[in-house]
């Protein structure tokens, strides 16, 4: 009887001691099934996450680093000649042909909004002569940024064994890229155009569908490959509050990103009254 009482007491004690930890863990990861890895930051502070430091396939989120290097290397008005290799790029593309001449700024827009791999390769080759050389610079820049769980083997995000990044690293990378005003301006656009020097115009939509649908959405970058799954770096700002979400391998990334962003703004308000309805997005 005494032993049984002790056992009950011990079980109770263990249960009580574990309960707060369990609650805390639940609070930190409210979306356990949303993604292979995700991270939600409010004003630069991590609020919710799971597997944020694990190495994942970043798919086209890689292009954030490519864009950063391009912006640090050439002016937007620089003329870029599309190489035959760039013109043959797989996956998403805007249809560039070898020999076409475009501004680097227009190619950046195509790379970031349409996730165009032909534009991506053309830029990488313009900056470093070859993609391989550009990739060396990517890894050096990543190291300089403090990306400890990232490594890149190509400029545009194609799946490869040694091509990986963590959600936490991608948040750091997004910070660095967003510090470039040109980057922030481009990724927030809902639509874009790229014009060749001889007048041909390519028109495309931003693949980030949150823009125009979520109040304060400012884009950034989407990504997808078979191995990586659906990925997103999304930014939204309301008033002075900035919410950054990183999703890697997220089957339902849009709905979950919306839930994360709305929850983050609710959280930032401290559970206060909802935002005035004048802030609601205007249907277009």
């Amino acid at each position, binding site marked *: 009887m005494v032993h049984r009482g002790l056992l009950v007491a011990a079980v109770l004690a263990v249960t009580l001691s574990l309960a707060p930890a369990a609650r805390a863990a639940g*609070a930190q990861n*409210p*979306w356990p*099934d*949303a993604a292979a890895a995700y991270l939600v930051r409010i004003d630069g502070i991590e609020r*919710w996450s799971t597997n944020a430091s694990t190495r994942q396939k970043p*798919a*086209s989120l*890689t292009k954030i680093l490519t864009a950063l290097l391009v912006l640090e290397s050439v002016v937007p008005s620089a003329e870029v000649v599309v190489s035959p290799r760039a013109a043959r790029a*797989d*996956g*998403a*593309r805007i249809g560039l042909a070898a020999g076409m001449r475009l501004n680097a700024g227009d190619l950046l827009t195509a790379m970031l909004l349409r*996730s165009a*791999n032909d534009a991506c390769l053309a830029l990488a080759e313009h900056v470093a002569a070859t993609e391989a050389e550009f990739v060396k610079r990517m890894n050096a820049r990543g190291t300089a940024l403090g990306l400890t769980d990232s490594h890149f083997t190509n400029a*545009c*995000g*194609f*799946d490869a064994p040694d091509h990986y990044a963590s959600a936490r690293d991608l948040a750091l990378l997004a910070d660095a890229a967003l510090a470039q005003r040109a980057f922030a301006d481009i990724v927030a656009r809902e639509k874009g155009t790229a014009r060749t020097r001889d007048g041909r115009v390519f028109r495309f939509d931003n*693949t980030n*569908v949150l823009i*125009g*649908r*979520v*109040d304060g959405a400012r884009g950034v970058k*989407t*990504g*997808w*490959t*078979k*191995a990586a799954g*659906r990925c997103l770096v999304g930014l939204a700002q309301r008033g002075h509050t900035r919410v950054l979400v990183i999703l890697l391998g997220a*089957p*339902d990334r*849009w*709905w*979950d990103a*919306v*839930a*994360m962003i*709305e*929850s983050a703004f*609710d*959280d930032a308000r401290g559970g*206060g*009254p*909802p*935002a*005035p*309805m*004048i802030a*609601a*997005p*205007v*249907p*277009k």
Partner: protein
Amino acid sequence: MRPYRIALAPVVNRSLPCIAFALLFATSAALAQGGMGQQTRTFKIGGPDELWDVTMKMEMPGMPMAMPAQTFQSCLKKDRAKSEDAIPKQDNCKVTDVKTVGNKVSFAMECAGNDPMTGRGEITSTPTSYDGKMQMKSTRRGQEMEMTQTFSGKKVGACTDESEKMVANARAAGDAQMATICGQGIETLQYELFVGKDAACQAQRKAFCDKVTGLGRDMREPAAYKAVVAKSSMEAVQGSFKACNVNLAEISKAACSKATSTRDWAFVGNGLCDDDVRVAGATHCKGRDYYLVDRSLTSLCNRYARLTRGPGTTGTAGAPPAAPTSTPAQAKASEPPKPADPLQQGVDALRKLLPF
């Protein structure tokens, strides 16, 4: 030198002592303020009272150099001999033993405080001038000090003391400003101005709550609700209605119901209509691909996602199902193809059910 102040014990009713008291007051005031440059009273030439030029000089034995004489103007009430207004109310010093002989008044003075002083003085005056002298003694740190103050005055014309008028004007301006602030506070629902024992606009609390009650009637319509929130803030609306005991929840519910019936989804998704969002969202959002949702519904569907997937919810049971997973032939860095047609969606859904 430490300034001394004068407390006048007797209320005298003759012009001569009154001049002396006024002079002493003017002198002490001038000393207290550090001279003419910082005189606190203001005068306007032309008026019922008398403008006097006053000169005074202080001498203290042992000082390395003589203090220069100071001259300033003072406005004295014309009826000061009959009015207590002419008698300054000063602490620390009191005038006693006032004696008047002809046009001369003599008096004794005692000042208390850290450096107590005693002394005697006399003033000779005419209706348009006066001359006086006062000798004071003080003991400071065991050392006895003496000082002699001489003063003279000359009537130079008429004046009006503007100080009281300025105070009255300032008070009126302050009252007007406060009335403006309170009026604006009513319009913008700054309930803190009207609530609480020390609220600045407590007197207008009824007007404030009448306004809130009136708004409450209008806000059953979503457009009016939006307008009120846009003009102030949601926090202000909530605080104001609570302060005036007006049931905002019931009003919000009525507005939400109206917005749902008129398909005003931007209003429904604003965070106040969550019961309506759960019902309408299940119809208009659940099971759809996010990028296929009509933009007029995004406010509703964003809130629906928050309610069914966010922290504090019961999980994702009521959430939209996962978007169809496409399986492109190659692993390319690009966006997944969006489902082109219902057949493709069916194929994708079937794939999810298969164990490979």
